[in-house]
């Protein structure tokens, strides 16, 4: 029959400088503590981290002589681990980490809003083509379209700038778009992204 030294005695030995007592303590509670952490975290890597942090706290408290043998050792380390688990979840709530699975990739739902290089090149090409096409429009229509699209002015501002009524500005914009479409159709130009 194997004789087991009580935790309290091991702690006393450790505080007195016997490092092997710590090894015995860690090995004795390894499975129990790791399983407890794993049951809450469900991740082996994080379980290791929390296990390690728990014992770092234990070591520091024991070495500083702050541990008092009021309760038992196991409930005490469980409490430390429990608090560290809560800290872990708090941190994660502020900065959630999502890992995809084999069947589901998070990037299939979330994507970068920026265009990729190919799409950006196509867009640049369309923009420059459009500038050439706009040059084909009658001057009054071209001015309204430029002010509205490129200078982002409202129709009220356009009417003030050009000295025509809002309705006229609206009409010119409408004809500018109709004419642009006509030019595109007549020349079989494809402007798609």
């Amino acid at each position, binding site marked *: 029959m194997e004789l087991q030294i009580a935790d309290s005695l091991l702690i006393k030995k450790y505080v007195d400088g016997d490092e092997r007592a*710590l090894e015995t303590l860690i090995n004795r509670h390894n499975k129990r503590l790791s399983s407890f952490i794993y049951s809450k975290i469900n991740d082996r890597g994080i379980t290791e981290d929390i296990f*390690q942090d728990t014992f770092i706290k234990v070591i*520091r408290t024991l070495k500083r002589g702050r541990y008092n043998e009021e309760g038992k050792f196991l409930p005490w380390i469980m409490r430390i681990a429990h608090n560290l688990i809560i800290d872990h979840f708090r941190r994660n709530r502020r900065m959630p980490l999502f890992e995809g699975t084999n069947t589901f990739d998070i990037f299939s739902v979330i994507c970068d809003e920026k265009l990729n290089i190919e799409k950006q090149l196509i867009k640049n090409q369309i923009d420059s083509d459009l500038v050439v096409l706009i040059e084909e429009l009658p001057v009054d229509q071209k001015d309204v379209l430029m002010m509205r699209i490129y200078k982002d002015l409202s129709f009220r501002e356009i009417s003030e700038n050009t000295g025509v009524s809002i309705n006229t500005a609206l009409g010119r914009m409408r004809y500018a778009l109709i004419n642009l479409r006509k030019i595109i159709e007549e020349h079989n130009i494809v402007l798609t992204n």
Partner: protein
Amino acid sequence: MEKIYVKNKNKCKLVKAKPETIQFLLNYSKSLKITEADGIKFETNMN
């Protein structure tokens, strides 16, 4: 018929901290020294 069955290994292992983690803790413990001066405790880690 037996070919369609896959021999699934029992992947369930008991969770236990790795020996490296334990070794790290033991080394940490050995390197940690607490010194007291004027009632204030200082931690020194000698690697």
